[in-house]
C-alpha cells in the first residue's frame, strides 16, 4: 500500500464529512477531498498528516469558493429545483430537512475560523492539529471552540424558536 493510499484510507471519511459539513454539498466535498490527496502525492514529507490534510482541504475550498461561487450557486439552485420536484410524503423527512436547513444556517452564521475549528474538532483533530491547520496559537483553540459552540447552539435555538412560532401561526 502506498503512502497516499494509506492516507486516503485513514482520513478520507473524516475529510469528506468535514468538507460536506463545511460546503453542504457531498459531491463537491468529495472532489475537494480527492484534490487534497492529489496534493499530498506531490509532497515529499508531511509532518502532521491530519493537520496538513485538513489545512489543504480548507484552503482548496477557500480558493475554489472564490473562483466558482457563481457556478456553484447556479448548480445549487438547479439541485434545489430537482429536490422540490420530488415527493415528500413523510413528516419525519420534512423534520429532518428542516433540521438540516437550520443547522446549515446556524453553521453559516459562525465566523469562518470558529466554524472550521469546530468542524475539525468534530472530526477528532486535537488542539495542536487544529492550531496547525488554521495557523492559530494552540492556546487560543479552547477559546475559539467554546465561542463557536456557544454561538452555534444559540443561533440554532433562535432558529428553532422562530420555526416553532411559524408553525404555531400556520396552525392557528
Amino acid at each position, binding site marked *: 500500500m502506498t503512502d497516499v493510499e494509506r492516507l486516503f484510507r485513514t482520513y478520507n471519511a473524516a475529510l469528506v464529512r468535514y468538507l460536506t459539513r463545511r460546503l453542504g454539498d*457531498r459531491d463537491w466535498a468529495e472532489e475537494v477531498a480527492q484534490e487534497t490527496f492529489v496534493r499530498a502525492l506531490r509532497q515529499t514529507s508531511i509532518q502532521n498528516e491530519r493537520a496538513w490534510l485538513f489545512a489543504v482541504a480548507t484552503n482548496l475550498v477557500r480558493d475554489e469558493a472564490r473562483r466558482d461561487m457563481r457556478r456553484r450557486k447556479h448548480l445549487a439552485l438547479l439541485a434545489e429545483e430537482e429536490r422540490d420536484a420530488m415527493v415528500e410524503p413523510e413528516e419525519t423527512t420534512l423534520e429532518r430537512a428542516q*433540521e438540516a436547513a437550520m443547522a446549515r444556517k446556524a453553521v453559516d452564521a459562525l465566523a469562518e475560523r470558529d466554524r472550521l475549528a469546530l468542524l475539525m474538532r468534530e472530526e477528532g483533530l486535537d*488542539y495542536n492539529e487544529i492550531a496547525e491547520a488554521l495557523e492559530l496559537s494552540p492556546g487560543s*483553540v479552547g*477559546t*475559539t471552540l*467554546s465561542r463557536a459552540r456557544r454561538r452555534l447552539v444559540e443561533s*440554532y435555538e433562535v432558529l428553532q424558536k422562530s420555526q416553532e412560532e411559524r408553525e404555531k401561526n400556520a396552525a392557528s
Partner: protein
Amino acid sequence: MQHLDEGTIHSWLDGALSAEEAARVSAHVEECPQCAAAVAEARGFIAASSRILTALDNVPKGVVPVAERAKSRNWAAWRAAAAVLVVALGSFAVLRERTGTQRSVAEVAPISARSPASGVVADTVSPTTAESKSALAEAPTAKVLAKPSTPARAANPSAIGKIENRGMEAQDRASVPAVISQSPAVVAGVRPEARVDNAAPQNFGAATMKVAAEPLGGRVAGAASIVGASGAAMSDALAGPTSIRVVGTPRVIGEKRTLYEVAPGDTVLLAEALKLELNSVVVTGLGATRTAQSTDTSAGRQIRLRGATSRPVAPDSQRSNAAPSPAAAAPPASPTASLQSVQTLNGVTTLTWTDPASGNTMRLSGKHSAAELTEIRRRIEQLRAAEAAKKKP
C-alpha cells in the same frame, strides 16, 4: 484560584490540557459551584453542537433519498404483516401436514420465522405428484441454505427427505442489492403446483411462503403469499393497501412499455419485448420446463442459485432439467410464474422473465430491491390477468 474561563473549561473537557493543568481545573471544579455549573453548561454546548453538526450530514447526493425512504416505510408495514402471516401459516401447514399422509415441506416456514434476520426467503408450496429428477432434490437431507452468519436450520431433515415428489429449490436472494453478490440471502422453497386437478390429498398442506428478510436491516422484509388449493384469495389479500395502476404507456418499437405507479411518485417500468429472446425461459404449459439461465453478469449483480433445484412437474408436462445454475430464480408469485433473472445497476433493479402466456420477454425495472420488484411483478401480473379476463367476452 480565579474562576475558570470558558476556553479553559472546553480545553479541559476536550482533554487538551496537560495533566498538571487538568488536575488543577478538576480540583477547582470540585469546590466551586459556579465553575461546576459552567462546566455543566459547556458539556451541554459540546453535545448540542455535535448534534447540530450531525444534522448537516443529511445532504442528498444525486439520487432521490426522499422517495426511497417513503417507499421503504410502506414496504416495511406490509412486510411486518407478511411476517406474521408466514408464521401463522407455517404453523398451520405443519399441523395439517402432521395429520396427513404426506408431509409438507412447509416445515421450512418455522425456519424463516425463527431467523427473521437471516435473510431467508422460504418458498414452500404444495407437494406435487411429479417425480423430481433432480439429484439434489432427492437428497434425503435437502438443505435449507442460509447465510453463513445465521444458518437456518432445516426444520426436520428426515421429514423433508421423505418428500420425494417435491423439489427443493434454494435460491439466493436479497432485498438489498449490494448484498446480493456478497452475502446472499436464501430462498428455500418448494415449487408450487397449485393446479386444481392436482389438488388431491397432497394439496392439503399447500402453502406458498415467501419471507424475504433484509440481511442488513435485520427485519423481516418479504412478502408472504399463499397459493394452494384455497390459498389464492389470501394471496390477493396480501396485495396490500397500495394499489398498482397504469400511469403511462411510452411507445417504443419492438416493445410494449407500461409505467405502473406502485406508490405516489414511485413508478416501475414494465417492458414487454414482442419477440422471444434467447436469454429467457422455456415454458411448456403449466409444468414449466425451466432452463436456468445465467444473467448477463456484466450488467450488474446477479443472484446465484444455491442448493437443490427441482421443479414442479404436472402430470402432462415434460421433465425439466433442474441442474443448479447460477441463474436468479425468484419465487413464483403464481403457479404460472417462470424463472426470472435479476440485475441491479445504479440502484435500479431489473427483473427479466418470460411471460408464459405469450412467450414474450418481460422486463420490470424500478428503484426497488429484487424482493420488492418480485412482489410488484406479482401484483402487475394479477392486474394484467384481471384486465385480460375483463376483455374476454
